């Protein structure tokens, strides 16, 4: 927990380059931290199609591609842009703290 809010969790150093992602865990949640166009986003790792880990995927512009079957999700609003997924993923915005750490409110993500 950081001092910035009840739901904000520390997700490690803000050291990613644009287009990079990494796994993270917080409060039992398997998460992905990504840097997209200069901003950090956080989303749960499980693809809404067959729950493959999106942490194995890659970023395509402002979207994440699932490595299993090729589903593509917007990292603006989580909408499935390409199938086979139909359901969205939950994406939350993240901030960088004064001491260079990624923090995010993950209360809307599910374990």
């Amino acid at each position, binding site marked *: 927990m950081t001092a910035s809010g009840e739901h904000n969790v520390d997700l490690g150093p803000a050291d990613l380059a644009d287009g990079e992602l990494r796994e993270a865990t917080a409060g039992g949640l398997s998460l992905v931290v990504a840097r997209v166009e200069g901003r950090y986003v956080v989303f749960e790792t499980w693809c809404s199609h067959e729950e493959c880990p999106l942490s194995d*995927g890659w970023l395509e512009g402002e979207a994440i*591609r*699932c*490595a*299993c*079957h*090729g589903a593509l999700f*917007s990292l603006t609003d989580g*909408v*499935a*842009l*390409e*199938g*086979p*997924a*139909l359901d969205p993923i939950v994406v939350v915005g993240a901030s960088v703290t004064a001491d260079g750490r990624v923090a995010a409110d993950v209360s809307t993500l599910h374990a």
Partner: protein
Amino acid sequence: MSAIEEWASRITVEQLDTDPYPIYARMRREAPVCFVPAVGLWFVTRWADVDFAASHTDRIDSAVSPSPLNRVMGGPSILVLDGEPQKKLRAMLDPSLRPRVVEATSPDLVAPIVEGLLDALADRGEAELMSEYFEPISVLSLGSMLGLAEIDGDTLRRWFHGLAQGAVNFEDDPARWEIADATGEEIDRTLAPILERLWEVPDASTISTMLQHAEGSFDERVATILPTLKVILLGGMQEPGHAAGTTVAGLLESGQAGAVALDPAGLARDAIEEGLRWVAPIGTQTRRVRVETELGGVPLPVGANLGALVSSANRDEEVWGPTADAYDLARPSRNHGAFGFGPHFCSGHHFSRVQMRIAVQRLFERLPSLRSDPDRPPVFNGWEFRAPQHLHVHWDA
């Protein structure tokens, strides 16, 4: 008989082939699940119902009977199987079609084909893009990946055209069967020595991978995979070319080609996704009711055959808004149903998309002044498969 049932009883295959969309629109409004005697199918037209029909295999499965597919493919293929048999066939296909494999191998496979065709066209200033560009890219790209690089593009195109005659033959037209049957027999004869060679000397091709993953003797493995191979020879070879042609036709018809010409790398993806939505190259997933089910307010008995119309789902106003019938490059991006719903979602979708993006992007990069031939506008045809029959264009050579 109600007024809508009477109207549906008068629908002809010719009307569907000419333009099915006004028919689907009326059904979505007045009878979203509607029996069409001309093809012997209950048409399912709304997005939510199409998703349900294609996704709930415990209630609605793929074993449509009678179906032209088993005859065309020479046996049960991946399209008509569910559960474990379908998963086994998917497991044979998926390794070569995983996104990471496609991203690593497809650009180097597709780009030379695209550049070679553009080199041949560039100085002419005119072309018919379906037969001279999009279909050759489609067949040669997939042919190479499958392990059929030795088969020329004209033969592969003739094969998918021939198989398509049978696959859409819900009206049991003998003339269509004659073409489809002859094509199937030719494919069997041509592939026999190739399959033997790949069995003796495996390689990284899709056909070799399928042979290795199948079970039993060589003959048993061939019997297992050959009908599914024919599905790929039809759908995998025809649809990317058709969808790419539809995309360019949509751009030209709507006056939005210029935007793509200014930024082909940035807009090719959006253009293709909207093209796939606007006119899905495969219009339906046919299904059979196995447990009495109510869909769209209609009680469907066991054995009822359904046409879950992905092409209609892609125009559902509840999902796509009042401009659903228009090709709109600026439409907010979201997933469409062109590659199907449920467990039978197209396993080759990523390869198809990568191929189409390269084809459309390079077309506009090399021929930015592309425009329609006003004397020969594109004419779309088909309801089960739909695409421009011809796409005549000009450019400043």
